[in-house]
């Protein structure tokens, strides 16, 4: 790709002989290119302006008022909505639920994803088929999958009751028991998303140079030690990528929760995104919905900043 500078591009050559006529033509040429740039970028940026940037400003304003989304009057109440949220027992529970759901969802899909990737990284027949099966649920509708799992969790007629019954265990009433509802939605989320981690980890494992393992083996490292000293460090950029992606995705998980529990029973699975929906479109508390949406945004923004801050150090390890 290295070329002598003199051969590289034409503008330098032309600049040697600045004939006025030519510069005029050149300027027109630039303008045409700028115009094309604007033409190409404008639709995308316009849509972002209307449907991403403006809503953030609008959210900020709405979070300072009390409004039922119908009446023509919006009452300005300052930080009233935020004060309400952080003193509200339900909202504190919502924050805690979000944390529990996220830790369970991210931890579960990463650990099981790594385990299945290590499994499929061996020379096994049908392993590509197995990889395809594991990945398939990530592409399916969360709403439809949620419905299927409500049937599976049915404590009397469901698949799990059938399986647990065959080893002599009675099924908990998963979705109507506040203690079991959260584990149930986490199970579904992990079931649906584990294949993504598997595929990404598998690609990472296959990219690790084999001579690293050979070197470790020569040094007398056993299987576990090789895993700790070669596999895990080499996978750390991928783990980092997966943690961030899974964190952001799990904070946005709506369809599974809406379909399976509607945030219940007694708010046991009410997470931030569900709370925003419920306050806005069920209870018609525009102000609280906007304030909660900004809390959600702040958390996700924080995660993204961490990513940008540490991505450099962690990713370029070699």
């Amino acid at each position: 790709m290295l070329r002598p500078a003199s051969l590289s591009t034409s503008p330098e050559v032309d600049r040697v002989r600045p004939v006025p006529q030519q510069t005029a033509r050149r300027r027109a040429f630039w303008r045409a290119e700028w115009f094309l740039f604007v033409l190409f970028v404008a639709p995308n940026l316009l849509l972002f302006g209307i449907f991403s940037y403006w809503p953030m400003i609008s959210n900020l304003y709405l979070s300072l008022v009390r409004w039922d989304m119908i009446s023509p009057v919006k009452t300005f109440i300052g930080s009233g909505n935020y004060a309400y949220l952080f003193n509200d027992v339900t909202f504190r529970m919502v924050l805690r639920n979000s944390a529990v759901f996220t830790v369970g969802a991210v931890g579960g899909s990463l650990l099981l994803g790594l385990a299945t990737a290590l499994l499929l990284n061996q020379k096994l027949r049908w392993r590509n088929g197995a990889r395809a099966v594991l990945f398939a649920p990530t592409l399916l509708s969360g709403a439809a999958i949620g419905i299927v799992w409500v049937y599976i969790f049915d404590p009397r007629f469901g698949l799990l009751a059938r399986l647990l019954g065959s080893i002599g265990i009675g099924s908990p009433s998963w979705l109507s028991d506040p203690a079991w509802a959260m584990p149930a939605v986490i199970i579904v989320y992990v079931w649906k998303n584990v294949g993504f981690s598997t595929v990404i980890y598998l690609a990472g494992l296959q990219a690790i140079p084999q001579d690293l393992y050979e070197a470790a083996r020569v040094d007398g490292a056993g299987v576990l030690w090789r895993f700790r000293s070669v596999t895990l460090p080499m996978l750390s950029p991928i783990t980092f990528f997966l943690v961030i992606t899974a964190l952001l995705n799990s904070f946005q998980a709506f369809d599974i929760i809406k379909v399976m529990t509607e945030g219940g029973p007694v708010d046991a699975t009410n997470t931030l995104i569900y709370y925003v929906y419920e306050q806005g479109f069920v209870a018609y508390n525009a102000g609280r919905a906007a304030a909660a949406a900004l809390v959600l945004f702040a958390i996700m923004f924080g995660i993204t900043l961490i990513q940008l801050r540490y991505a450099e150090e962690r990713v370029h390890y070699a």
Partner: protein
Amino acid sequence: MRRSGTSLELGQLVSYALMALAVAVIGLPLLWMLLGSLKTNQEIYTMPPQWLPTEWRWENFGDAWNAAPFGQFYLNSIITTLAGTGLELINATMTAYAFAFLRFPKKEWVFVLLLAALMIPNQVTILPNYLTLSDVFGQTWINTYQGIVLPGAATAFGAFLLRQSFLGLPREVLDAAKVDGCGHLRLLWDMVIPLSRPVLVTFGLISLVAKWNDYLWPLIVTNTQQMRTLTVGLTYLFDQEGNTNWGEVMAASMFVIVPLLVIFAWAQRHIIEGIAAGATKG
């Protein structure tokens, strides 16, 4: 060193068993859906539930189809998915081309504007977007196709993905075309797009899957049965008949799931490898 021989080693046997277990854990729920869609209510509501239906009740599919206007739901989902994916592809391609090949003063500032959009998730903007669309120059776009499609028609992710791929195209070929007097539009249409087909297909498929499965926004922005998409229509049927008519509800769930499983079976390699490559490289 690996012991060679024709008999399976114990370790390998364990690996095969674990692989079978993983496939079963992921596959059984989907199988349960399929079997449920073929059972009579009498069989579904017996204890303990049986695996296989004794008589296969295909009528569940017809009943589900008639229990709600699924033909209309399909039409709505197909229209909004194709329009949304098409717009995302066009926006991504044009933006990526502009940032990869066109000169513009302070281009990097415009780039930051795009980067910032990546940090605003759709879920945070639902309420203001609903308000925006309920009054577009005095008209309401709630309950319209454009209302469903437009808020998701812009893409920063797609623009970054394609820009990265455009920058990796062989420079010599593009320069040669330019020397031959090839304008930007010709260059984009005749060279860049054909050369980038794999990444365009990958992004198109990712976008297609997301639009088809989208639930929160269509739920909010539609308010008549006529305008519901498949995912939303399905959950309304479930609200009415879940727990009382599982056979029909499982059949209806398959209406939503099967089209994507077919696409996946057809483009499996492409999707998996595209996603893995995108994540590990970037």
